[in-house]
């Protein structure tokens, strides 16, 4: 029994000896036995040979189509993420921008109209030239915004853009020489 246990002790340490992983005391004891045991010497040689065969295994290269496939998936995924991140945000930004501009332009027009009406009733407040200039400026601003809105409408839903045509109709569609249509008059498109 003791011999069997003793043999096992050395047998269990063959690989550690080959790798140089034995403690100093174990290494001395192992070498002492190795010098006199042919069986142990054979075990050590076989262990060395085995390690050499394993370590000489060929380096396997991954087939290129594997990495190509994987990278294609990653690139497609990365591109999709970018479109998702930028797309809706761009639409919302554009929508909000144009909506804001349109609202500002409409507010400016109404302000001008209000002033003009006040001025019509009180001709001493504004000269006709000043009124005409203000109206032309407002019309120009509205036209600019409406053109831009029309173009934006091609990219985004038109119902997202506050209708400008109402204000356009009030100001741009006129039959008077000064280009101003009095709201509530017969020529007012809203009364058609």
């Amino acid at each position, binding site marked *: 029994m003791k011999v069997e246990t003793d043999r096992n002790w050395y047998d269990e340490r063959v690989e550690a000896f080959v790798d140089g992983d034995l403690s100093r005391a174990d290494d001395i004891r192992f070498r002492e036995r190795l010098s006199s045991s042919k069986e142990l010497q*054979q075990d050590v040689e076989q262990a*060395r040979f085995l*390690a050499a065969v394993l370590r000489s295994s060929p380096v*396997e290269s*991954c087939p290129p189509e*594997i990495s190509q496939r994987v*990278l294609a998936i*990653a690139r497609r995924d990365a591109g999709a993420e970018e479109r998702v991140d930028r797309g809706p945000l761009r639409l919302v930004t554009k929508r909000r921008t144009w909506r804001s501009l349109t609202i500002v332009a409409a507010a400016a027009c109404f302000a001008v109209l209000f002033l003009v009406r006040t001025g019509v009733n009180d001709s001493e407040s504004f000269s006709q030239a000043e009124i005409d200039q203000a109206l032309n400026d407002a019309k120009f601003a509205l036209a600019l915004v409406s053109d831009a809105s029309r173009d934006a409408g091609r990219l985004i839903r038109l119902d997202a853009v506050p209708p400008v045509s109402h204000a356009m109709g009030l100001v741009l569609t006129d039959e008077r020489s000064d280009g101003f249509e009095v709201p509530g008059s017969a020529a007012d498109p809203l009364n058609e």
Partner: protein
Amino acid sequence: MVNLEQYEAAVAEHRDRVFGFALHFLGDREEAEDVTQDVLIRLWCNRDNVAIETLTPWLLRVARNACVDQYRKRRTRDQNREGSPDATEKLVSQTTAPDRSMDNDILREQIVKSVNELREPYKSIVVLREMQQMTYEEIGSALDLPLTTVKVYLHRGRRKLRESLKKLYDDFADAGLGVNQNGSIGASRQSVHANNQSAV
């Protein structure tokens, strides 16, 4: 690791290692390709959670788990537990042993087959250490094992291989062939004993 460039660099650096491990573990090229693809895709899906410093152990851990799963699937399909003999033969045919002979080819084939037959975790550790030349620390990190445990398991795994090799050596001896001093097949056993007189 969060962007595509870093991921592409990681794939270029580690794809051969992952594939090599899977091939040596499974012994089947097709299965190894599937596992490699699966592991690299998982890396992309988890890129925000993997640091560059821990990339190698992470990849090997995932590869090993994937190989174990694949191995279990193979078993449930009632395939040969020792691995596909065709794949084993392919692995053997690709080696370029310096003293190539038919008998040593058989020997090499048996060694590869024996690795395939090892139980876990010996198999993973033998493949990572002996075939992938990874350090003990890298193996410990990949398999979440202490350093001393890695060494013990490695030595036990190689001991089991040596035991299966010993049986083969006996078979060769019965066929009139012996084991050279360096362990290869060739000279008769008697000459080995004579040589061993002056060994170490």
